[in-house]
């Protein structure tokens, strides 16, 4: 039976000390920038912790998940090397209880079986902002019919500012929007409260075959998470997703990295 993940919550000072003693370079935003000067005093690094850090320092697959919501900000990285996975996680809450400085913060260090990656990724996706009472009592449960809708990416980027500058009608005309599209954009603009960005990286070993990189972007609305999936020329498709879908949505990129790394090692 596969062992369950193991986690360690460290203060910033303890985390930085551990990283320096291990002498490893960790992926951003968890890089400890000071040189490994302080190796005295506290003894060797526990082999399991050293292995945990080693996975993060030399991953075959690296996934970074950043989420910015009204309730707070979270940053996480996940690494897989061989059969083992590891992660780092930090969060700053928006309720005034966040650490006032980097030094006061904390970080969670985890190690898990690689096949648990999908379960671990879910932890990095916060719950979307909750719907207000009014929308939750709406006939459609406050869930707009956005799923599967395709919209112009230019309009997504420009509509909000244009509406504020020249008004909704003029903005819709300027962007060539139908009434339905303008309504959709107004609704989506008003109800978007945050975003999640997931980056997937890999680098085949050996010859310079470049770096594999993929990105998934979700927006957090009071009706839940929606992915902005590229679909056509200047067009994205709105795909309704849930926290639990993160692994499935990243699967094509993760599969590609694993295949490329393996091909290269073979």
């Amino acid at each position, binding site marked *: 039976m596969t062992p369950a993940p193991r986690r360690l919550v460290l203060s910033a000072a303890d985390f930085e000390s551990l990283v320096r003693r291990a002498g490893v370079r960790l*992926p951003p935003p968890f890089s400890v920038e000071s040189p490994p000067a302080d190796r005295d005093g506290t003894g*060797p690094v526990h082999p399991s912790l050293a292995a945990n850090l080693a996975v993060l320092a030399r991953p075959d697959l690296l996934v970074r998940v950043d989420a910015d919501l009204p309730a707070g900000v979270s940053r996480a990285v996940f690494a897989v090397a061989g059969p*083992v996975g590891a992660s780092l996680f930090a969060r700053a809450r928006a309720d005034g209880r966040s650490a006032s400085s980097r030094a006061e913060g904390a970080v969670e260090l985890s190690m898990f079986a690689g*096949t648990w990656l999908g379960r671990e*990724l879910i932890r990095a996706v916060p719950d979307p902002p909750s719907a207000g009472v009014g929308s939750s009592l709406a006939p459609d449960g406050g869930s707009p019919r956005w799923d599967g809708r395709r919209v112009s990416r230019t309009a997504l980027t420009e*509509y909000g*500012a244009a509406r504020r500058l020249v008004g909704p009608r003029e903005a819709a005309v300027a962007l060539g929007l139908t009434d339905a599209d303008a309504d959709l954009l107004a609704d989506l603009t008003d109800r978007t409260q945050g975003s999640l960005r997931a980056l997937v990286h890999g680098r085949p070993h050996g010859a310079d075959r470049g770096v594999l990189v993929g990105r998934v972007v979700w927006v957090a609305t009071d009706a839940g998470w929606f992915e902005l999936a590229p*679909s056509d020329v200047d067009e994205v498709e709105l795909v309704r997703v849930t926290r639990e879908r993160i*692994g499935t949505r990243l699967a094509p990129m993760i*599969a590609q990295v694993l295949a490329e790394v393996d091909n290269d090692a073979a």
Partner: protein
Amino acid sequence: MTLPELSVSGGAGGITAELDDLELLARRSADDAAEYAAIDGRAHAILLDGDVLASAVLDPIGMVRFAEALLESLDGPHGLTALTVRMELRAGALRAAAASYRAVDAAQRDLIDSIRFVVGFGLGTVPVVPLALGLAGVGTVRLVAGLNWESLLTAHPGLVDDLVGVSPGLIDGLLGPHAGATDLASAARLVGELYPDGSAVVTPLGLDTRDRSMVVPPAGFADLVTGLAYRDDDATADRQGDIDVRVVTGADGSRSYIVDIPGTKDWHLAPGQHDGPLNDIGTNLHAMGGESTAYEQGIGEALRRAGAGAGDPVMLVGHSQGGIVATDAANHFVAHGQFNVTHVVTFGAPVGRLDVPDSVAMLSVENNNDIVAHLDAADNPDTPNRTTVSFDDDHGRMGENHSLEVSYAPAARALDASTDASVVAFRDSASAFLGDEPGRAVSTYAYQVRRG
């Protein structure tokens, strides 16, 4: 003499400078609005001035005219009040735009930092790990065969937690300055940064007779995998995005269609297709993903070109992302009445959280040691129309555990010999596609699906 082409970033023409200008403009707009508001307030106060009010007793008509004129100049559509409001709106919009661009800029810096880290570890710049680690030094987790990683995991001094989806509860901090994207505009801009635009373009590659699996009717699951693996192997380099449609013609002339959908490779190269800092990293970037919609559109087009009608039985067979696309396509094709998808077979695809129409029989084969197959973090639904076959096959490499040929082909051969009731029922229901009866024939047409 030919002058060298220059590449310039940063400086007065850089995006930071432009954002500073934008914010300056916002501040000026806000200052202007404040100034207009102050004048506006003083002008409105004139109407309440004691002397002016007193004059109304002596010349009430004149007072009304004066008040009307003043209010028109202040509150009319072109008045000072309206101008103040417009300036405030403008300042707000400019501030929001600047914040959005800064958030995108920050996200791009994060991307570049991550890429630099990836390039760095690939170059072997990681220091050697402590002596205390012994044989389990940096990289040995991956490199040393036979390392007992499960022992290391079990000996880890941390807390045990195997709950799915529980967010970390004790964490607060260790974040540097952040300017994350919280608005729709920023998120949409980020989508466009990596992926070039394009529509699904399907190019017929003709009848494929190069492999036995393309000309012999598939008798069972092993033949399905052989054909899919052949297409997967073929879909490399400039053949990426290849799929095929195996047209199975029965002895009675009936036709059924099997679509082979490999997992995708990198379809786009980011450098050269984008301006800006991504080109300055000094390594080739291969952008992944973002293709599922185009892929699915291409499958529909390929089926039409192969002659499939709305009533002909269709089986979609996919590996990895191909399995996800096959499942999504089955949903859409059935929901819109485009094709009569009756069967879906997936290998190494995380489909546990994907719905399947009740009318579609689905068989999913998953290696317990395949990371990709378990990215859904969920068991496949146990329903009458969904059969999941799991097996243990650990080759010590993530890619091989996910490989069609290495891991899934042997499993498919075992599946052909299986007498499990669910497997037998699926095989029997798929007789339009699988079987070696006399008179059955197959012709395979290959297509390339790209965003162009």
